[in-house]
Protein backbone atom coordinates (compact mmCIF):
# COMPACT_ATOMS: atom_id res chain seq x y z
CA UNK A 1 0.00 0.00 0.00
CA UNK A 2 1.08 3.53 -0.57
CA UNK A 3 0.16 6.30 1.82
CA UNK A 4 0.73 9.84 0.70
CA UNK A 5 1.09 12.38 3.46
CA UNK A 6 0.81 16.10 2.79
CA UNK A 7 2.16 18.30 5.52
CA UNK A 8 1.35 21.98 5.38
CA UNK A 9 1.83 24.89 7.71
CA UNK A 10 -1.36 25.84 9.49
CA UNK A 11 -3.06 28.73 7.73
CA UNK A 12 -2.21 31.27 10.43
CA UNK A 13 1.47 30.36 10.45
CA UNK A 14 3.78 32.49 8.38
CA UNK A 15 5.32 30.65 5.42
CA UNK A 16 8.49 32.42 4.35
CA UNK A 17 9.27 29.82 1.73
CA UNK A 18 5.93 30.10 0.03
CA UNK A 19 6.17 33.87 0.17
CA UNK A 20 9.57 33.80 -1.47
CA UNK A 21 8.38 31.44 -4.19
CA UNK A 22 5.39 33.69 -4.85
CA UNK A 23 7.71 36.70 -5.12
CA UNK A 24 9.90 34.82 -7.56
CA UNK A 25 6.91 33.86 -9.69
CA UNK A 26 5.78 37.46 -9.78
CA UNK A 27 9.22 38.53 -10.89
CA UNK A 28 9.03 35.95 -13.65
CA UNK A 29 5.80 37.58 -14.80
CA UNK A 30 3.22 35.26 -13.27
CA UNK A 31 1.09 37.98 -11.76
CA UNK A 32 -1.94 35.69 -11.70
CA UNK A 33 -0.42 33.66 -8.88
CA UNK A 34 -1.96 35.23 -5.85
CA UNK A 35 -0.49 33.17 -3.10
CA UNK A 36 1.81 30.21 -2.61
CA UNK A 37 2.13 27.92 0.38
CA UNK A 38 4.90 25.38 0.51
CA UNK A 39 4.65 22.10 2.35
CA UNK A 40 6.17 18.66 2.54
CA UNK A 41 5.06 15.56 0.78
CA UNK A 42 5.84 11.99 1.80
CA UNK A 43 5.19 8.73 0.03
CA UNK A 44 5.21 5.79 2.40
CA UNK A 45 5.24 2.25 1.06
CA UNK A 46 3.62 0.19 3.74
CA UNK A 47 3.17 -3.53 4.22
CA UNK A 48 -0.48 -3.55 5.15
CA UNK A 49 -3.47 -5.71 4.37
CA UNK A 50 -6.04 -2.97 4.19
CA UNK A 51 -6.14 0.67 3.31
CA UNK A 52 -7.41 1.25 6.83
CA UNK A 53 -4.28 -0.30 8.35
CA UNK A 54 -2.05 1.70 6.07
CA UNK A 55 -3.84 4.90 6.93
CA UNK A 56 -3.63 4.18 10.61
CA UNK A 57 0.11 3.60 10.40
CA UNK A 58 0.68 6.66 8.25
CA UNK A 59 -1.23 8.87 10.61
CA UNK A 60 0.75 7.59 13.56
CA UNK A 61 3.93 8.31 11.64
CA UNK A 62 2.67 11.79 10.83
CA UNK A 63 1.77 12.48 14.43
CA UNK A 64 5.06 11.27 15.75
CA UNK A 65 7.50 12.30 13.14
CA UNK A 66 6.42 13.76 9.84
CA UNK A 67 4.46 16.75 11.06
CA UNK A 68 4.97 19.17 13.89
CA UNK A 69 1.51 19.64 15.38
CA UNK A 70 2.40 23.04 16.79
CA UNK A 71 2.68 24.64 13.39
CA UNK A 72 1.70 22.04 10.82
CA UNK A 73 -1.29 19.98 9.89
CA UNK A 74 -1.40 17.01 7.57
CA UNK A 75 -3.66 15.07 5.27
CA UNK A 76 -3.34 11.45 4.18
CA UNK A 77 -4.39 9.65 1.03
CA UNK A 78 -4.07 5.89 0.67
CA UNK A 79 -3.93 3.89 -2.50
CA UNK A 80 -2.06 1.08 -4.14
CA UNK A 81 1.55 1.81 -4.83
Amino acid at each position, binding site marked *: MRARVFVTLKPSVFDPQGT*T*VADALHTLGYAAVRNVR*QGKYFELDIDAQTAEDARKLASEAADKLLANPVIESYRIEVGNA
Partner: protein
Amino acid sequence: MKFAVVVFPGSNCDHDAYYAVEHVLGQEAAFVWHKDTSLGGADVVVLPGGFAHGDYLRTGAIARFSPIMQAVQAFADAGGPVLGICNGFQVLLEAGLLPGAMLRNRSVKFQCEHVFVRVEQTHTPFTMACRQGQVLRIPIAHGEGNYYAEPAVVERLEQNRQVVFRYTTAAGEVTDAANPNGSVHNIAGLCNERRNVVGLMPHPERACELAVGSADGLLLFDSVVRALTQGVLATAR
Protein backbone atom coordinates in the same frame (compact mmCIF):
# COMPACT_ATOMS: atom_id res chain seq x y z
CA MET B 1 43.22 41.71 -12.85
CA LYS B 2 39.65 42.51 -11.99
CA PHE B 3 37.34 40.05 -10.23
CA ALA B 4 33.60 40.57 -10.19
CA VAL B 5 31.93 39.12 -7.10
CA VAL B 6 28.25 38.71 -7.83
CA VAL B 7 25.96 39.54 -4.91
CA PHE B 8 22.59 37.84 -4.81
CA PRO B 9 20.15 38.70 -2.06
CA GLY B 10 21.21 36.16 0.55
CA SER B 11 24.80 35.76 -0.62
CA ASN B 12 26.90 35.73 2.50
CA CYS B 13 30.39 34.74 1.43
CA ASP B 14 30.58 37.70 -0.94
CA HIS B 15 32.72 39.67 1.49
CA ASP B 16 34.98 36.67 2.02
CA ALA B 17 35.61 36.28 -1.70
CA TYR B 18 36.18 40.01 -2.00
CA TYR B 19 38.61 39.98 0.89
CA ALA B 20 40.52 37.02 -0.47
CA VAL B 21 40.94 38.68 -3.86
CA GLU B 22 41.57 42.23 -2.76
CA HIS B 23 43.51 41.79 0.49
CA VAL B 24 45.18 38.40 0.24
CA LEU B 25 45.68 37.96 -3.48
CA GLY B 26 46.25 41.66 -4.04
CA GLN B 27 44.05 41.92 -7.11
CA GLU B 28 41.10 44.17 -7.73
CA ALA B 29 37.65 43.02 -6.65
CA ALA B 30 34.27 44.62 -7.21
CA PHE B 31 30.81 43.63 -6.07
CA VAL B 32 28.21 43.31 -8.80
CA TRP B 33 24.57 43.45 -7.75
CA HIS B 34 22.38 40.66 -9.10
CA LYS B 35 20.03 43.13 -10.71
CA ASP B 36 22.85 44.64 -12.73
CA THR B 37 23.22 43.57 -16.31
CA SER B 38 26.92 44.23 -16.73
CA LEU B 39 29.94 42.64 -15.13
CA GLY B 40 31.75 45.95 -15.32
CA GLY B 41 34.63 44.76 -17.46
CA ALA B 42 35.75 42.04 -15.07
CA ASP B 43 38.37 39.48 -16.06
CA VAL B 44 37.10 36.83 -13.64
CA VAL B 45 33.64 36.21 -12.27
CA VAL B 46 33.06 34.70 -8.84
CA LEU B 47 29.65 33.49 -7.73
CA PRO B 48 30.10 33.37 -3.95
CA GLY B 49 28.61 31.14 -1.30
CA GLY B 50 25.59 31.85 0.82
CA PHE B 51 21.87 31.31 0.71
CA ALA B 52 20.63 33.21 -2.32
CA HIS B 53 16.93 33.93 -1.80
CA GLY B 54 17.18 31.96 1.41
CA ASP B 55 17.66 28.74 -0.59
CA TYR B 56 13.98 28.44 0.17
CA LEU B 57 12.83 26.54 -2.86
CA ARG B 58 16.02 24.78 -3.88
CA THR B 59 19.53 26.05 -3.65
CA GLY B 60 20.19 28.42 -6.54
CA ALA B 61 16.75 27.92 -8.06
CA ILE B 62 15.64 31.52 -7.90
CA ALA B 63 19.03 33.15 -8.32
CA ARG B 64 19.47 31.79 -11.80
CA PHE B 65 16.77 34.17 -13.00
CA SER B 66 18.62 37.25 -11.77
CA PRO B 67 19.40 39.72 -14.56
CA ILE B 68 23.14 39.39 -14.00
CA MET B 69 23.03 35.72 -14.95
CA GLN B 70 22.62 36.60 -18.61
CA ALA B 71 25.85 38.54 -18.44
CA VAL B 72 27.51 35.65 -16.64
CA GLN B 73 26.29 33.27 -19.33
CA ALA B 74 27.62 35.53 -22.07
CA PHE B 75 30.92 35.93 -20.25
CA ALA B 76 31.24 32.16 -19.95
CA ASP B 77 30.24 31.64 -23.58
CA ALA B 78 33.05 33.95 -24.56
CA GLY B 79 35.49 31.82 -22.61
CA GLY B 80 35.81 34.00 -19.51
CA PRO B 81 36.77 32.26 -16.26
CA VAL B 82 33.85 31.76 -13.88
CA LEU B 83 34.19 30.28 -10.40
CA GLY B 84 31.12 29.14 -8.46
CA ILE B 85 31.75 28.47 -4.79
CA CYS B 86 29.24 26.46 -2.77
CA ASN B 87 25.97 28.32 -3.33
CA GLY B 88 27.59 29.81 -6.42
CA PHE B 89 28.21 26.28 -7.69
CA GLN B 90 24.57 25.44 -6.99
CA VAL B 91 23.51 28.49 -8.99
CA LEU B 92 25.69 27.38 -11.90
CA LEU B 93 24.02 23.96 -11.81
CA GLU B 94 20.55 25.42 -11.76
CA ALA B 95 21.46 27.81 -14.55
CA GLY B 96 22.73 24.92 -16.65
CA LEU B 97 26.27 26.30 -16.93
CA LEU B 98 27.39 23.09 -15.29
CA PRO B 99 25.61 19.71 -15.47
CA GLY B 100 23.92 17.91 -12.57
CA ALA B 101 22.15 18.86 -9.39
CA MET B 102 22.56 18.88 -5.63
CA LEU B 103 20.78 16.67 -3.14
CA ARG B 104 20.68 17.03 0.62
CA ASN B 105 23.81 15.76 2.35
CA ARG B 106 23.33 12.14 3.23
CA SER B 107 23.65 13.15 6.90
CA VAL B 108 20.61 15.35 6.29
CA LYS B 109 22.47 18.03 8.21
CA PHE B 110 24.44 21.16 7.52
CA GLN B 111 28.12 20.34 7.85
CA CYS B 112 30.91 22.80 8.51
CA GLU B 113 34.41 21.32 8.72
CA HIS B 114 37.72 21.06 6.96
CA VAL B 115 37.90 18.36 4.30
CA PHE B 116 40.53 17.16 1.85
CA VAL B 117 40.06 17.42 -1.88
CA ARG B 118 42.35 16.11 -4.57
CA VAL B 119 43.02 18.18 -7.64
CA GLU B 120 42.04 15.93 -10.53
CA GLN B 121 42.63 18.35 -13.35
CA THR B 122 45.14 21.12 -13.62
CA HIS B 123 43.91 22.05 -17.06
CA THR B 124 41.44 24.67 -15.89
CA PRO B 125 42.03 28.36 -15.16
CA PHE B 126 41.42 27.74 -11.47
CA THR B 127 43.77 24.79 -10.98
CA MET B 128 46.70 25.41 -13.26
CA ALA B 129 48.89 26.47 -10.32
CA CYS B 130 48.18 23.15 -8.58
CA ARG B 131 49.98 19.87 -9.01
CA GLN B 132 48.01 17.05 -10.56
CA GLY B 133 46.81 14.93 -7.65
CA GLN B 134 47.68 17.58 -5.08
CA VAL B 135 45.57 17.27 -1.93
CA LEU B 136 44.15 20.53 -0.59
CA ARG B 137 42.71 21.11 2.85
CA ILE B 138 39.69 23.38 2.48
CA PRO B 139 36.53 23.81 4.56
CA ILE B 140 33.03 22.91 3.49
CA ALA B 141 29.90 24.51 4.90
CA HIS B 142 26.73 23.26 3.31
CA GLY B 143 23.58 21.23 3.78
CA GLU B 144 23.10 20.38 0.15
CA GLY B 145 26.36 19.38 -1.43
CA ASN B 146 25.54 15.83 -2.39
CA TYR B 147 26.30 16.06 -6.09
CA TYR B 148 24.15 14.02 -8.43
CA ALA B 149 23.98 13.51 -12.16
CA GLU B 150 22.61 10.64 -14.18
CA PRO B 151 25.09 7.81 -14.65
CA ALA B 152 25.57 8.63 -18.33
CA VAL B 153 26.34 12.24 -17.46
CA VAL B 154 28.81 11.23 -14.77
CA GLU B 155 30.43 8.88 -17.26
CA ARG B 156 30.82 11.69 -19.71
CA LEU B 157 32.21 14.02 -17.04
CA GLU B 158 34.83 11.46 -16.18
CA GLN B 159 35.71 10.80 -19.80
CA ASN B 160 36.01 14.46 -20.62
CA ARG B 161 38.08 14.94 -17.49
CA GLN B 162 35.63 17.49 -16.17
CA VAL B 163 35.83 16.31 -12.57
CA VAL B 164 38.20 18.88 -11.13
CA PHE B 165 38.10 18.09 -7.41
CA ARG B 166 37.31 14.90 -5.51
CA TYR B 167 36.89 14.36 -1.78
CA THR B 168 39.70 12.17 -0.51
CA THR B 169 41.61 11.30 2.63
CA ALA B 170 44.58 13.43 3.61
CA ALA B 171 46.68 10.95 1.69
CA GLY B 172 44.62 11.42 -1.45
CA GLU B 173 42.67 8.19 -1.38
CA VAL B 174 39.11 8.22 -2.64
CA THR B 175 37.14 6.50 0.11
CA ASP B 176 33.56 6.59 1.20
CA ALA B 177 34.58 7.82 4.64
CA ALA B 178 36.32 10.79 3.04
CA ASN B 179 33.14 11.74 1.24
CA PRO B 180 31.39 14.23 3.53
CA ASN B 181 28.05 14.39 1.79
CA GLY B 182 27.48 11.39 -0.44
CA SER B 183 28.42 12.98 -3.76
CA VAL B 184 28.57 10.59 -6.67
CA HIS B 185 32.17 9.53 -7.42
CA ASN B 186 33.23 11.75 -4.47
CA ILE B 187 32.84 14.74 -6.77
CA ALA B 188 33.62 18.02 -4.99
CA GLY B 189 33.96 20.22 -8.05
CA LEU B 190 33.79 20.16 -11.82
CA CYS B 191 34.16 22.23 -14.93
CA ASN B 192 32.23 22.66 -18.16
CA GLU B 193 33.36 21.14 -21.44
CA ARG B 194 35.14 24.29 -22.39
CA ARG B 195 36.88 24.16 -18.97
CA ASN B 196 36.48 27.87 -18.19
CA VAL B 197 33.57 27.48 -15.76
CA VAL B 198 34.45 25.75 -12.50
CA GLY B 199 32.18 25.04 -9.56
CA LEU B 200 33.03 23.44 -6.23
CA MET B 201 31.37 22.95 -2.87
CA PRO B 202 34.39 23.60 -0.62
CA HIS B 203 35.27 27.21 0.13
CA PRO B 204 38.71 28.14 -1.20
CA GLU B 205 38.16 31.76 -0.14
CA ARG B 206 38.04 30.54 3.48
CA ALA B 207 41.40 28.88 3.08
CA CYS B 208 43.61 31.72 1.92
CA GLU B 209 45.54 32.40 5.12
CA LEU B 210 47.18 30.12 7.64
CA ALA B 211 45.71 32.25 10.40
CA VAL B 212 42.28 30.86 9.61
CA GLY B 213 43.48 27.29 9.28
CA SER B 214 44.72 26.81 5.73
CA ALA B 215 46.09 28.71 2.76
CA ASP B 216 45.51 25.95 0.21
CA GLY B 217 42.54 27.70 -1.32
CA LEU B 218 44.69 30.55 -2.50
CA LEU B 219 45.99 28.25 -5.24
CA LEU B 220 42.70 28.58 -7.07
CA PHE B 221 42.97 32.34 -7.15
CA ASP B 222 46.67 32.26 -8.01
CA SER B 223 45.81 29.92 -10.84
CA VAL B 224 43.38 32.23 -12.54
CA VAL B 225 45.76 35.16 -12.27
CA ARG B 226 48.42 33.06 -13.90
CA ALA B 227 46.02 31.80 -16.54
CA LEU B 228 45.09 35.31 -17.50
CA THR B 229 48.58 36.76 -17.44
CA GLN B 230 49.95 33.89 -19.48
CA GLY B 231 47.16 34.35 -21.95
CA VAL B 232 46.11 30.72 -21.59
CA LEU B 233 42.60 32.04 -21.61
CA ALA B 234 41.02 34.52 -23.90
CA THR B 235 39.70 37.31 -21.69
CA ALA B 236 36.06 37.81 -22.31
CA ARG B 237 35.69 41.53 -21.99
